[in-house]
């Protein structure tokens, strides 16, 4: 099963490498990863999406906890939480499709962040399904370039699943 794990870590050099090394050294796969500073600049938050059966996920959680620079491990999958990712999509539509691209961007609450004579660059934020949906719809219009962030996640306040 797929899990989204949120980590609070010391904001020091080498920490990312320790975490990546933990996954590679044990043959676990990282599907997506995002890192950023928290309000406290000494602490970073990492969101890792990984897949495994219960035993593997339990090991991953324990192994992450064991790392000396890891302050806290939260398996978001066990909590009610909100997940988001962002894409920047550069589309080069034919003249007759331009209106449709703009319409799609609007439907998905995307923003046009750059436009040229031949291209639009659309920024879309949402959960995985939403991102995949707009990508599918824009594909026939000619996606020229495509960049996607890793997932970030935050727990909803006050509710615990199960």
């Amino acid at each position, binding site marked *: 099963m797929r899990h989204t794990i949120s980590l609070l870590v010391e904001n020091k050099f*080498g920490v990312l*490498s*320790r975490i990546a*090394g933990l996954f590679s050294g044990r043959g676990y796969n990282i599907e997506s990863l995002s890192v950023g500073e928290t309000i406290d600049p000494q602490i970073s938050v990492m969101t890792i999406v990984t897949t495994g059966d219960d*035993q593997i996920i*339990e*090991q991953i959680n*324990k192994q992450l906890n064991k790392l*000396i620079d890891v*302050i806290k491990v939260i398996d978001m999958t066990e909590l009610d939480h909100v997940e988001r990712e962002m894409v920047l999509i550069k589309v080069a539509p034919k003249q007759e499709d331009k209106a449709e691209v703009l319409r799609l961007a609007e439907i998905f609450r995307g923003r046009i962040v750059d436009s040229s004579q031949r291209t639009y660059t659309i920024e879309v934020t949402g959960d995985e399904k939403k991102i995949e949906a707009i990508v599918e719809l824009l594909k026939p219009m000619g996606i020229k370039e495509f960049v996607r962030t890793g997932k970030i996640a935050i727990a909803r306040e006050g509710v615990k699943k199960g």
Partner: protein
Amino acid sequence: MKITGAEIFVESLKKEGVKHIFGYPGGVVLGIFDFLYDNKDVQLILTRHEQGAVHAADGYARSTGKPGVVLVTSGPGATNTVTGIATASMDSIPIVVFSGQVPTLLIGNDAFQEADIVGISRPCTKYNFLVKNVEDLSRIVREAFYIATSGRPGPVLIDLPKDVTAGKAEFTWPEVNIRSYNPTYEGNKWMITQAANLIAKSKRAVIVAGGGVILSGGARELRELAEFTDIPVTMTLMGLGSFPGTHELSLSMPGMHGSYYANKAIQESDLLIAIGMRFDDRVTGKIDAFAPHAKIIHVDIDPTSIRKNVRVDIPIVGDVKRVLTVLNKVLKEDMKEQWAEVRNAWLRQIDAWKKERPLTYTYSNEIIKPQFVVEKIYELTKGDAIISTEVGQNQMWTAQFYKFDKPRTLLTSGGLGTMGYGFPAAIGAQLAHPNKLVIDIAGDGSIQMNIQELATAVINKLPVKVAILNNRYLGMVRQWQELFFSERYSHTKLDESVPDFVKIAEAYGAVGLRATKPNEVEPVLREAFRIKRTVFMDFVVDWKEKVFPMVPAGAPIDHMLFEEQKEKTEKKLKAVK
């Protein structure tokens, strides 16, 4: 007053109570070596290879319980420590390795003798540091010692750029405060009570004791538990010495080369109490067929060890000594079982297994059997010695035929299986225990992997004894080739390439002795133990001898091969294949 990084380094070691460090000089650590030159508090033992330095520090740590310390130069000096660090890491041994590094401004420039040792050692250290400012040095040293020795112990590396050790700062000694590192020592009380209930209910319980018992200093508590509840104890290779090998409840070692009765007891048990051990594949054999009828209680300080490869009914994360103290208390106060009565049938069954197939070999009058040498060493030392081993047949015969009664008397590379470990480890142990008899039980292959440390032993007047079981083969690999590769001895026959160990010893200024007949074994050992110098003993042994019992890799642990029924063994082998 500001002092140099080199002085801060030495001051910090003094604060940590370090008397000896093992090392090797080089360009970027010249400043530190210069400061050590006339320092009276910290003595540097020059080994002849950096790998030897780390193993020596490891042997020092295993035999004393105090962290071993290493100082080497950058680049090749640092990379040469990797095998030693990985060895210590796999067996949870506290050592602190200081490596020199090129000046901070040159890091990443492929400078002369530069290696990214922090990157290289990351997966095999518990933690490592690159010191970027001399102001941080003493704090980092203190943190390193704390991390190495607390929780599940392990090696820590500190990389010291040349400009940091040359720079100046005030000496400070701040308390350790690492918010993200809080090992769990106290076991969960409810879980411990559950464990006690299971113990009280069980009819066929067995304890499997590992290296964690020794690391936590919990041997006394373990013995109390076993004796009070009448539960037999089998000790993993790392656990040998955690429970007296001569005790009537001792089942010797389990696993691939374990005793018949240890493996039988595990397979037939209804409760397995795993204490400070991590279910290594050499212990479990085929994991799905391991202890099929048993509920499992697992005590370990490292949560990642629990449920890593076997299902566990009662997990208890905590320090073995503390958990067992509470467990014993609960058992004594709350449980009203008549233990002896409950266990009677089980202990009689185990006795029957012990009689059915004791650990044994066929003695010969003509040729020295390697097991005979180990037995003689045990007989003459009466167990009052520190024994190190290399890796291979020598290691397994030692585990089988030497009865370890006390913790910290066996130094062996269990997890990584490092050939060349035993001799430098013995040197480290001898330095810490000048009046103890320290013996490395070696093979002719392994001893050649760090034979240069003869110089270290001789010059420091360390009377280490090395008993070489010389079969002119890489014996354990040869054994596998005989059993599983149709006797095709690919690159395991050393034969005439084996040097004259007596002459080598003499060339280094040590003593060399040789025995070629069984009746020469005891006189040679007696002579070696009498001489207060480094001694190499060359025992020319039967090359055909194999380690039995043996569980083929991947088979359940009660599918054992034995020496005496050759035909049956071959049949069984075919079936396993």
